[in-house]
């Protein structure tokens, strides 16, 4: 499905095609610090997304395998992107709240659940993965989350 979205101030927009309906939540401490509580996101391969307003995208290398982008005008988080080689290379994790229409998504997975804040619980039955399980899943490809 084709979906569009934008940051809070509208300086950066995107259009994505073939967007999955699966949403996941990451509770790692880096995502907590960056997004304020957790990162809820939708995976979009690099070939399926087009950005406008790229001059307003700030980028920060947050690990050896990924970078994070945000709008330098309003501070909205825009993406977590895999920069390392491998099967996940170029994948963008797009924050759920950026989509103009966030209907039709379903939460399918929470990761780093052993790092999660106890302050809240997301509704629903979905796959839960600990930090060790996530790292084991990615260890074969040498790409972390």
């Amino acid at each position, binding site marked *: 499905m084709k979906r569009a979205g934008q940051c809070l101030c509208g300086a950066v927009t995107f259009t994505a095609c073939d967007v999955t309906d699966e949403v996941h939540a990451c509770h790692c401490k880096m995502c907590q610090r960056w997004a*304020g509580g957790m990162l809820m996101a939708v995976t979009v391969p690099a070939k399926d997304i087009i950005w406008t307003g790229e001059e307003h995208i700030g980028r920060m290398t947050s690990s050896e395998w990924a970078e994070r982008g945000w709008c330098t005008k309003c501070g909205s988080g825009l993406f977590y992107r895999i920069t390392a080689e491998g099967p996940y290379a170029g994948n963008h994790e797009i924050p759920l709240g950026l989509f103009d229409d966030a209907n039709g998504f379903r939460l399918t997975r929470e990761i780093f659940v052993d790092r999660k804040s106890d302050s809240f619980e*997301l509704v629903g039955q979905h796959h839960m993965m600990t930090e060790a399980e996530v790292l084991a899943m990615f260890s074969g490809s040498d790409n972390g989350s």
Partner: protein
Amino acid sequence: MDNQPILNFHCLCGAIAVTLENRHNRRIGACRCRMSNQWSGGVFLSIDAQADAVTVTGEVARHPSSSFSERASCLRCGSSLWIRDTDRDDARYELMPGLFDEARDRPLRSEIYIDRALASARLVGDHPRNIRADYEAGHLFVEGDNP
């Protein structure tokens, strides 16, 4: 729940450091409005703190997201830091709890703008929930569809 007199936090890259005098047992509030969804990715959570309890060091990017408030982030890594009214000097901070390790066991106080919550990001619990109209009846708000 909290015995430490001072809570320290920093953003993802460490450029911003904040200390919070821990005077009260602060709970976590959730705002589900459209602007908060866009800014924080889906579930906006915050800890309320009075202005004179908060000390900030580092380069802060401030976005005037309405005529009466700002949303602050780290200039270097984009970490969300707070939302705060700008119409008075002693306005309280709504600080992002993800910045604090100590905030992880604080219960949820309430959700506002619950009628704007994303369907795939609903929260469990019997805490109070207010719809947009209820909240806007008692607070300053942004006109239009965006909230």
